[in-house]
């Protein structure tokens, strides 16, 4: 009995860690894929796209196993619903990174060089926000007292992301020489990247509620 419980524990802890690793890794892959796209290095872009697909696939498998284990083995009864929601939200963030690269691949937006730096910064903020979310999720499992610090950082990166997104959109729409369709297309991508930070912040808000619920 004891051995079973402990084995199960080690297995599931590793699954959670691996899953969070995938989320973190997908942010980095998205960043390198985006960079390759801006540099028009389509080979590196394809490679990032493939890697992010794999990461998402691994994440899906881990998420499904986790969900099944939590229900089938009736683990953490009081936090089960919260953990499942957390895993789902994290999976959505992972999906957002993958979606961004796929949209670049499908739509091939023409990103003018003058916007490159802002796009880089914007994506950097979203990736940092997701990183902080991953760290707060890890803390939620291991060290509940540290969650608040990380959540604070998510908010910071989200605010930064908002600033850059507004600045970038203004700059795009100031370019009267561009076609409206081009400007709208670029705005769509700005929103797409900014949305990742917004969702990370929503997840941070939910996490702070879970922490209150779990607070002993």
């Amino acid at each position, binding site marked *: *009995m004891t051995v079973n419980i*402990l084995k199960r*524990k080690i297995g599931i802890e590793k699954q*959670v860690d691996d899953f969070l690793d995938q989320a973190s890794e997908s942010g980095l892959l998205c960043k390198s894929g985006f960079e390759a796209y801006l540099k028009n290095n389509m080979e590196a872009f394809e490679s990032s796209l493939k890697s992010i697909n794999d990461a998402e696939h691994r994440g899906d498998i881990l998420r499904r196993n986790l969900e099944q284990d939590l229900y089938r083995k009736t683990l*953490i009864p*009081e936090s089960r619903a919260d953990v499942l929601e957390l895993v789902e939200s994290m999976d959505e963030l992972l999906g957002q990174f993958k979606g961004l690269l796929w949209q670049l691949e499908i739509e091939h937006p023409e990103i003018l060089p003058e916007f490159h730096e802002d796009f880089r910064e914007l994506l950097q903020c979203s990736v940092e926000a997701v990183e902080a979310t991953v760290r707060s999720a890890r803390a939620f499992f291991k060290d509940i007292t540290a969650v608040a610090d990380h959540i604070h950082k998510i908010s910071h990166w989200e605010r930064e992301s908002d600033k850059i997104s507004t600045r970038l959109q203004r700059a795009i729409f100031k370019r009267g020489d561009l076609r409206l369709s081009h400007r709208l297309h670029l705005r769509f991508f700005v929103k797409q990247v900014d949305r990742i930070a917004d969702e990370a912040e929503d997840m941070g808000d939910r996490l702070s509620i879970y922490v209150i619920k779990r607070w002993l």
Partner: protein
Amino acid sequence: MFAFFLLSGLFLGWSLGANDAANIFGTAVGSRMISFKKAAIFCGIFVILGSVISGAGASETLGKLGGVNAIGGAFVVAFAAGMSVYLMTVAGYPVSTTQAIVGSIIGWNLFTGSLIDYNSLATIVSTWVLSPVLTAIFSIILYKIVSFYIRHRKIHMFTLDARTRFGLILVGVFGSYSLGANNIANVMGVFVPVSPFSDISLFEIFKLTAAQQLFLIGGIAIAIGVITYSQKVIMTVGTAIFEISPVAAFVVVLAESIVLFLFASQELESLLIRLGLPTIPLVPVSSSQAVVGGVIGIGLLKGARAIQWGLVGRIAACWVFVPLIAALISLISLFFMQNVFQQRTYLPVKYFLTSEAVERVQASGVDVNKFKDISGKEFPNAVIFKGALSEHLSLTSNELDLIMTSAEIDEMKVTQDRIARIPDGWITWEQKKVLEQLIGRAFVHSWMLDKALSELSKEWQFRQGEKAHNEELKRKLAYIHRLFRVNQP
């Protein structure tokens, strides 16, 4: 007939299982850490093991029903206690089975004209307050310690989950074992002397004494109670009073066990005495009431708003009602048993101030001239005798006790064949030798036999300050009285 009488013991066991499983696994199941099915199986198995293995130590004692001196009466008393606990179980309230038994015995006392043990009543009343309050305090302190430890050690959620689950199972298993060990004498003890079973031995390896066979049946009855009918009370304790978290669930059962161990364990007391350490005063504690107190303690710590105070009030009311209902059912059932079914429910205990009794009272410094006119008169029961004594003189309760016990007629005769019935190892070799010296002698009062024994050997004497020895001697003397009693139940 034995099988019929045994039925009420089994019914009492079943009710006990159905109600008391909540004390052990209530919070674990309520916090959804252990499924009801799993808890019931664990509890059932360990209740049976506890009954058979450790209950055997109590096989020479009759449990609480020992005072009931006719098997028909024991049948009714067990039935009344079982019925009152059953009624509370149907309603989903955790109550103390021991208190139901005491209430039921009071019904028997009223019916038979024997004296009510007011001490046991006072004990029950103090338990209602002490058990929940002590456990609530311990739960709060333990919870603070455990939550500090968890935060400080940064334990992973799943590790904590696994450890809590393991802790709940461990405490639950020990709790179930002691539930069986402590309660089986109350459920089955009274039937041991009249049991038709004989010892069973399988290939000389596996031995089951007659008492153990009876305890096995009783243990199975308790286990069936747990499996078939305990869910409702479990849910009351585990979720209805206050929605409890897994760690709190563990803290509550741990606090309950610690309170039982520290404040109600004679083993701990005798260990402290042996080590020359100061003892913790023993107070009456009931696990059913303790667990409710533990849950309330956690609720208070969390702000008290989520505690269902209405339910707590109803539970407390049931604690008061249970002994009363048990006494009432017992009284009515005894009337029917005796007058409708023509069964003997008690052996009348007569009182007679014999010259020996008067001498004994006088030796203690009581002026015997005051009740000269009632000595030499026979009284049919304790209540009438006590009335006659009170009419003549004002006595302190100690003096009254002394006169009552001195005048109680309890004829005994020491015979060779009955000495042979004493199980090996139950009394010492010297104690047995002394008994053999008394073969052929008859005594009108039980204390005369005690006196004769203590005059012949130090081993039959009570010793100043040696509580453990005195308790054991008391148990042995009670057994010896039953063995040599002329009017067997």
